């Protein structure tokens, strides 16, 4: 599996096919038994998660429940112990960019699904990651919030030239955002799937042998 720099890749697959496990492996949550993970051509599988510079947003957004929105966003910056003024500037910049300034002091448990995902995005992007992993980030968001988040992801990807691996079950999301769509099927990865073949994935049918 290879994600080109600046590419927005969608990963589809049935429940239990190992999509989340794959993201966890790339982010360093579990050690890999075999294989390797290369980011910008350098291997990262031997590095601890903090050394990989990979942004990860799990399905439930993974926010720190005892912290406010501002504390969540600035967490990674504080761990680096960099210049305080620079930290505040970056924190403010991302809160404004994702329209979160008015929520700064709020505890994250009081946020809606869409707001939580925007906080998680800001928290990951403020650290300027080399790769962004998204695990069904739109599944707990209402339809209006979902459209807004899709636009936001599209805009951020275009502006920042981010490399993104986005796991989803939603065909519309896959077709709207994905520059390339891959499918994890029975433990095997199909790296490029034609848009016409997508409906087969959801009918549980096998994909044709040749690539698009």
């Amino acid at each position, binding site marked *: 599996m290879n994600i080109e720099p600046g590419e927005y890749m969608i990963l589809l697959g049935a429940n239990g096919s190992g999509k989340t496990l794959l993201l966890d492996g790339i982010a360093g*949550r579990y050690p890999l038994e075999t294989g390797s993970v290369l980011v910008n051509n350098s291997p990262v599988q031997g590095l601890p998660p*903090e050394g990989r510079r990979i942004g990860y947003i*799990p399905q439930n957004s*993974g926010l720190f429940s*005892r912290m406010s929105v501002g504390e969540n966003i600035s967490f990674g910056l504080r761990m680096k112990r960099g210049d305080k003024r620079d930290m505040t500037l970056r924190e403010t910049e991302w809160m404004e960019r994702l329209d979160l300034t008015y929520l700064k002091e709020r*505890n994250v448990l009081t946020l809606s699904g869409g707001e939580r995902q925007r906080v998680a995005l800001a928290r990951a992007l403020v650290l300027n990651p080399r790769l962004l992993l998204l695990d069904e980030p739109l599944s707990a968001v209402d339809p209006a919030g979902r459209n807004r988040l899709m636009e936001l992801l599209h805009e951020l990807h275009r502006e920042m030239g981010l490399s993104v691996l986005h796991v989803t079950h939603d065909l519309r999301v896959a077709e709207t955002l994905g520059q390339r769509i891959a499918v994890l099927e029975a433990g095997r990865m199909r790296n490029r799937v034609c848009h016409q073949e997508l409906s087969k994935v959801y009918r549980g049918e096998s994909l044709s042998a040749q690539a698009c």
Partner: protein
Amino acid sequence: MKGRVNPFSWFVGSALGFMALFLLLPIGMLLARALGSYMPHTLVQVKEPLILSIWTALASTGLCVLLALPGAYGLTRFSFPGREVLRGLLQIPMSLPHLVSGMALLIFFAQSPVGVLLRKMGITVLFSPLGVVIAQFFVNLPYMLNMLLAGLSQGDQQEEFMARSLGASQFQSFWYIVLPNLRPHLYSALLVCWSRAMGEFGAVIMLAGIVREKTETLPVAVYMNMAAGDLDGAILTASILVLISVSTMILFHLLKKRGNNGRNTNASMYTS
């Protein structure tokens, strides 16, 4: 069939009533008797054992948390061969009668090379306040470990991983994520172990002996007063132990309640 009492409900109600009377009446009588026979001079007698109990319990509880916190973290977050066996073995002291634990400690500090070395270094464990601390430490360590293990097993490990993926080292993730989430469990564990240490008797008398004004903690004072026929002194000392236990229990429940509500507040990790 209105008004007819279900026999099962009657049985449950009776059991509850009997249980409440059986558990609370003797304690109530003890407190009433202490109030009735209160004399200022008996309170002076209790002062030294009370001070000794408080500081030895504080010291042993501090030692317990120093070992149990990293120990529980290691047992829940690190993967190593024999982890489950070790976890089981560390529970053994909890199932022993405290007298037996005290005897094991006595033999260890009297006869083992460690005990000999400590004596050569001028450190006296047997029949000394240090012995009191060590006895309390030994019997309470597995309890503290168990309470922290329960807290760490409930904790959200995803938050810890998210912290790591955001650049936190393992220690930073422990300090900023694990510890704040564990705080209610930690406070409860400290309180329960401190209270248990205050009341520890069996292991203390085996290791530190019964030496008036030297190793005389509150429970030892109760025993000594009873042995000397000073019933009023024994009752007063015992009622102080009751009051300490009841206050600890109330604090424990308050902390538990606060811990349950903690996730719904605007708790700040940087300002608190």
